[in-house]
């Protein structure tokens, strides 16, 4: 925590207004502890016992509950806090190890079974000096694990002491401690402790809060059988209190002692630097039983007094509001706002409450989102996610029923839910994390019976809403707008997931609205033969052309394209929700939809969302994740909005059914021969009595349905997707990533996976992410056609699952070194095949006439068609790769694909030169380009069976090292962006790099036209606190100019204490240069600042120094 310089002036505005308490809410008024308790305060039901030590019977229980005290070494005196008498205790060990107390016989009600309050007045005498250790003020616990013991500490500082309350819970005890407060000889202090019976304890000193803490896992205290000792410990060593004790009260409720309650009324305490924010609001509540007049409020920030203002009179139980503008130009840090209310008059009183606020730094530009597709409450799991490198969690929802009922934008939840969400967002913002709102109002709307889809017989589908109704579309917009207006001001809310996993329950629909919409679109009625969203197989259409070439205006083709594009309304529903969410949001707000390509391959999927995403299971072959990514990259090329982009998710969970035998199934270990000696050193499993190897997770969680992705598969899948021009990455399955996630069917079976992901984030995503998100794709000259006509009329397609023959062909292309770009029917229909040299056509049974013409023209100009036996008869493939169903044994399946890839390569090589190539089919290259610079990625797919799931032969989860020579058809200078060093590369007119790859390893080389020779860094030599200065850095080539590349940079801005300042972090220097507008804060540390820039291509650095202040 930093103290503000005395010169700092924080603008502060205090305004007060009378606020009546909401009807039905009851303000707990403060106890009149400044007076001697009487009436209900003395004898009420909630009072367990009250000892006022008044003459003539100082042992009496004034509550009338009969807990009479017995003098035991203490002394009754006539002087007291209120004049009627008091108990005098005295110093115990080591002064006099004797008892100085009164005892009260144990009774059940002296052991409260729920909330309770203990309070008393104390006045020390000279015996409470700096040498004296702790005093026990009240003790029913002694050394047991039951009841309570209140202790006043030895001095923690000159004249300062703390209270400790030790509570027993049966098998253990726990201690709550107060803040330190002054304890002065001869001065009365009122002390109180409240416990809510649920882990929260709070201290009050003279009616001011003196510290509170909530301990999780604690409930009511346990009842003990010991007598209650007042003024001393319940046994030796004795620790009496040197001084007077008066008005000791025990109550069975959590009582209030603050005459004025200060509460934070704002729902934010964390702010982004330079953010324009609303003032922080507090309420001052009169908790006394009289009107509060002449009260003064003083507000300070980090101890610096700022403003004092007199409040207008507040009636008992009512509140006034105080608004405090927050200066977010202060340096990022934690700050404490102290608000003090001071009451004069006959009963002068001062009470202070402290509130912590935080100002967090702004984010550096182009941070690559790492989304945990799931949530985690604040606590150890969230800590883990932050440590791993996640930037986003799924969080906010909305009350769809309320919005539906409102018929327009309204609050997105109950006040309690909204408050909880905003508190959660504060926590995320403090961690530099963000929340993704997950909204699926379309799924919810399927519950509205009158809007359900209907089949041709008019029967409704229970799981699917019809998007042709304007009411439904408006509802989507309303939901988005409701969430935006409820949470849109909070910077932690920067993104939304729109309608996840909804398209699988879509259906063709036959309302009159649907029929009319199609009629308007096509000019004719819905044609005969329509089946479901998966189309109508050509073999069931007697009039289907035998050559499987259909006119482009074939009515069923037109219909199915319409239903997938706009006819079922989902894409428009996505757009409406997206539009509603964007209303009033900043430019940085983004939406995404997933799984975006679990659809037919028709442009427009996802509507107008900002990003498409898709989830992929890495098994059996991590390379397959590239196929879904390419599908999305093509999908956004044809999107209605030109700037739509792609993110990609990997599933952390693995289906048990796809990786190992199901529970109860015969565990097949074909050819697996293990001995105990084989497996013990790796510590992953054991061999059972029958000689069968059993992995650790199989032994410990035999019925696991979902297990953890193996780390090496995660690594390979990561490199495969990040090689492509995606803007963010996601993971789902927190229960399989982290330990101790209770509930759900996701099992945590591989502890190493989280470390793997953390390492990938630290070494790749964070340093290189800002660069990679800016590097565009390189136009490939190999196209892989995923034919919509074949999806609809031959039941083909991947449907986002990367499987089937198309998935196998994708792998074959990878192993053949073909950087294939997925294309759709529309790609060819709209743009032809210009720019491509190879067209791969897996499962392209059916084509349209214009596609056939385009493909034939492509062949006529030398294009090479790679087909299969299913290829539409109108096309003669130059190369035929016979289809196969993937063998179940993973090594056999992979070997088959590699074999076919080598055969394909042999046929292609004389006619096709790759821009980038690999000498080893196990190592798969991929190129992106910016300007004259290429970014050459490669990933090592060489794998073997491991001891995690591999013994079942379904998945090869362990990587193996590989050697390969990578080649790119150009001259250039090569930089390893992961290791930040220049790489020796040979070749003339081409660049060759010999590389040894680790298991599952990927890399990215930056290949530039000119060598990097230096880093130029400019910063002013002198700057004043509060001034804005510009820092510029450039990565220079041998011509002295910035290189024509996007270069990763690490920028560190150190203040004189060595702490990193705002805008330290990683950058992607576009065109070799970056500029940073540094807004020095008025409370930034003066002195010499250091700015250090390192380019992460070759590792060159530059330093600059700037004096801040005089």
């Amino acid at each position, binding site marked *: 925590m930093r103290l503000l310089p005395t010169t700092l002036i924080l603008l502060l505005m205090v305004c007060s207004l009378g606020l009546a308490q909401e009807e039905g809410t009851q303000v707990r008024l403060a106890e009149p502890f400044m007076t001697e308790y009487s009436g209900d305060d003395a004898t009420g039901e909630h009072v367990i016992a009250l000892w006022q030590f008044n003459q003539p019977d100082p042992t009496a229980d004034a509550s009338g509950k009969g807990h009479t005290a017995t003098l035991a070494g203490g002394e009754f005196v006539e002087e007291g806090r209120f004049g009627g008498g008091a108990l005098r205790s005295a110093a115990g060990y080591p002064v006099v190890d004797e008892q100085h107390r009164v005892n009260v016989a144990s009774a059940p009600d002296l052991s409260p079974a729920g909330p309770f309050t203990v309070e008393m007045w104390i006045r020390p005498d000279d015996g409470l000096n700096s040498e004296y250790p702790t005093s026990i003020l009240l003790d029913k616990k002694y050394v047991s694990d039951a009841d309570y013991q209140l202790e006043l500490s030895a001095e923690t500082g000159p004249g300062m002491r703390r209270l400790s309350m030790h509570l027993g819970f049966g098998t253990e005890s726990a201690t709550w401690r107060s803040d330190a407060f002054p304890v002065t000889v001869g001065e009365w202090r009122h002390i109180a402790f409240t416990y809510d019976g649920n882990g929260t304890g709070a201290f009050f000193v003279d009616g001011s809060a003196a510290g509170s803490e909530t301990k999780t896992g604690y409930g009511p205290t346990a009842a003990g059988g010991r007598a209650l000792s007042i003024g001393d410990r319940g046994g030796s060593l004795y620790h009496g209190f040197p001084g007077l004790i008066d008005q000791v009260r025990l109550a069975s409720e959590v009582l209030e002692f603050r005459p004025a309650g200060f509460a934070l009324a704002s729902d934010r305490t964390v702010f982004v630097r330079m953010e324009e924010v609303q003032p922080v609001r507090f309420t001052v509540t009169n908790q006394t039983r009289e009107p509060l007049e002449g009260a003064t409020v003083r507000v300070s920030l980090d101890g610096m007094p700022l403003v004092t203002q007199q409040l207008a009179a507040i009636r008992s139980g009512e509140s006034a509001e105080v608004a405090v503008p927050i200066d977010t130009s202060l340096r990022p840090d934690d700050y404490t706002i102290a608000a003090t209310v001071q009451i004069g008059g006959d009963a002068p009183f001062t009470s202070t409450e402290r509130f912590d606020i935080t100002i967090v730094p702004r984010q550096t530009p182009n941070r690559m989102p790492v989304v945990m597709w799931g949530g985690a409450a604040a606590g150890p799991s969230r800590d883990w996610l932050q440590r791993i490198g996640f930037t986003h969690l799924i969080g906010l929802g909305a009350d769809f029923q309320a919005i539906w009922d409102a018929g327009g934008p309204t609050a997105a939840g109950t006040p309690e839910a909204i408050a909880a969400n905003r508190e959660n967002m504060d926590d995320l913002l403090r961690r530099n994390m963000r929340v993704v709102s997950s909204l699926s109002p379309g799924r919810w709307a399927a519950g509205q019976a009158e809007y359900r889809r209907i089949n041709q017989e008019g029967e409704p589908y229970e799981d699917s809403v019809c998007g042709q109704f304007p009411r439904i579309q408006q509802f989507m917009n309303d939901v988005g707008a409701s969430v935006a207006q409820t949470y849109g001001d909070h910077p932690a809310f920067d993104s939304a997931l729109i309608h996840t996993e909804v398209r699988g329950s879509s259906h063709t629909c036959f309302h009159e609205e649907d029929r009319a919409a199609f009629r308007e679109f096509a000019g004719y009625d819905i044609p005969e033969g329509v089946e479901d969203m*998966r189309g109508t*197989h050509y*073999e*069931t259409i*007697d009039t*289907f052309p*035998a*050559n*499987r070439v259909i006119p482009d205006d074939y009515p069923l083709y037109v219909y199915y394209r319409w239903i997938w594009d706009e006819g079922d309304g989902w894409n428009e529903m996505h757009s409406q929700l997206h539009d509603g969410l964007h209303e009033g949001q900043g430019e940085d707000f983004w939406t995404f939809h997933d799984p975006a390509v679990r659809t037919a391959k028709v442009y427009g999927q996802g509507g107008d969302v900002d990003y498409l995403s898709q989830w992929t299971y890495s098994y059996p072959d991590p390379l397959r994740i590239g196929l879904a990514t390419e599908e999305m990259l093509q999908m956004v090329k044809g999107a209605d909005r030109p700037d739509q982009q792609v993110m990609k998710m990997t599933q952390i969970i693995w289906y048990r059914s796809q990786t190992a035998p199901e529970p109860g199934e015969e565990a097949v270990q074909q050819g697996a021969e293990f001995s105990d000696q084989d497996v013990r050193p790796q510590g992953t499993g054991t061999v059972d009595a029958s000689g069968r190897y059993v992995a650790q997770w199989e032994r410990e969680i035999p019925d696991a349905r979902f297990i953890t992705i193996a780390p090496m598969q995660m690594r390979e899948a990561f490199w495969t997707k990040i090689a492509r021009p995606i803007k963010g990455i996601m993971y789902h399955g927190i229960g399989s990533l982290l330990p101790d996630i209770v509930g759900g069917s996701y099992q945590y079976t591989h502890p190493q996976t989280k470390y793997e992901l953390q390492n990938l984030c630290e070494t790749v995503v964070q340093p290189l992410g800002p660069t990679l998100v800016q590097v565009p794709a390189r136009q490939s000259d190999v196209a892989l056609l995923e034919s919509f006509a074949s999806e609809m009329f*031959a*039941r083909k397609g991947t449907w986002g699952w990367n499987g*089937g*023959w198309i998935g196998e062909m994708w792998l074959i292309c990878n192993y053949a070194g073909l950087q294939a770009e997925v294309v759709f029917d529309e790609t060819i229909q709209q743009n032809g095949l210009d720019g491509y040299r190879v067209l791969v056509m897996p499962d392209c049974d059916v084509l349209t006439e214009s596609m056939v013409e385009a493909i034939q023209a492509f*062949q*006529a*100009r*030398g294009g*090479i068609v790679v087909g299969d*036996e299913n290829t539409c*008869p*109108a096309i*003669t*493939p*130059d*190369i*035929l790769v*016979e289809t*196969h*169903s993937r063998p*179940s044994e993973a090594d056999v399946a992979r070997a088959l694909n590699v074999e076919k890839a080598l055969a394909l390569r042999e*046929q*292609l*090589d*004389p*006619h*096709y030169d790759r821009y980038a190539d690999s000498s080893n089919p196990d190592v798969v290259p991929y190129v992106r380009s910016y300007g004259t610079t290429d970014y050459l990625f490669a990933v090592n797919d060489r794998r073997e069976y491991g001891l995690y799931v591999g013994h079942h032969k379904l998945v090869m989860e362990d990587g193996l090292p590989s050697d390969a020579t990578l080649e790119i058809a150009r001259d250039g200078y090569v930089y390893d962006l992961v290791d930040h060093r220049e790489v020796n590369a040979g070749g003339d007119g081409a660049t060759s790099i010999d590389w040894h790859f680790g298991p599952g390893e990927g890399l990215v080389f930056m290949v530039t036209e000119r060598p990097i020779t230096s880093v130029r860094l400019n910063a002013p030599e002198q700057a004043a606190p509060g001034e804005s200065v510009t820092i510029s850095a450039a990565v220079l080539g041998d011509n002295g100019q910035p290189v024509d590349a996007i270069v990763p940079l690490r920028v560190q801005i150190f203040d004189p204490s060595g702490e990193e300042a705002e805008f330290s972090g990683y950058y992607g220097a576009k065109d070799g240069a970056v500029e940073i507008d540094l807004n020095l804060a008025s409370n930034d540390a003066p002195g010499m600042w250091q700015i250090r820039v390192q380019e992460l291509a070759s590792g060159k650095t530059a330093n600059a120094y700037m004096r801040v202040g005089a």
Partner: protein
Amino acid sequence: MRSVWTRAATTLALLVLAISCAAPRDLAARRMELLKRDVTVETLAAALDSRDALVARTAARVLPSKGPSAIAGLQKALRNRDMLVRRSAAMNLHELGEAALPLIEQALRDDNEFVRQGAVFALIAMKPSAGREALIEGAIGDESALVQRAAVMASRSSYRVAESIPLPKTGWLFRTDAGEVGREQEWFAAHLDETGWEPIEIERFWEEQGPESGTGWYRLALDLADREPPARAQLDFQAVDESTWVWVNGELAGEHDLGPDGWEKPFRIDVTGRLKWGERNQITVRVYNTAMAGGIWKPVSIVLLEPAE
């Protein structure tokens, strides 16, 4: 005249040599030469001898466009050792019109099913004629399911559906074949002791009656009314999960084996001449399933075809 032929032969020989021994970049260039509009039949025919697969296939693909003068070259192409050279030629023979029929017939006798399939594709692209129909008829009986399917599709342009006879949902018998002994023990026989076979319904998955991974057999005794035999009859399966073999009256009629991907795909098997009208027929279906549910889960019917006008 002789000298002209000698020069031509020499030129061709050199061309063949050049193509055969060319470096990769030359091969690509040579292939591009074959795609030029004015490429000669001789050049194309010579290119068939290239050791480079794509050069030879490109030549085979282009040759039919040269008309009857290409027939000799195409005969050579259909004898090429590269299956795809033969298939490329076969698929495009329709460009020769009726003159192609002998070549297609030759291709339909090829050992490789892909070549025969390519020949059927050529038939599909041809105008109807008696010769064409005869070849399609023959191809329907091909041993390859791939060729059969293509031929059935080819026949569509010659026939139209006259009637469809749904097979009953009930009345089927079922037995699992854990030991894969059904073929050996001829569970497809027209007459079989069906003791131990259990009733089963079709148009639903076999659920617990069948294996998650393995084989099950269906048998149906079907009485067909007496009538004039149709021009063609086909068993129309809307979908069987997963691979299927069909016998009619003890004779294998066809198969549908696309592996797991075939679970939801409709298919037809030609049973012309196999059904006995006015008598009881025995239909047997062997289903092999690799995962989850299996069986005849969608309707089956007999489709009767009549010649199109």
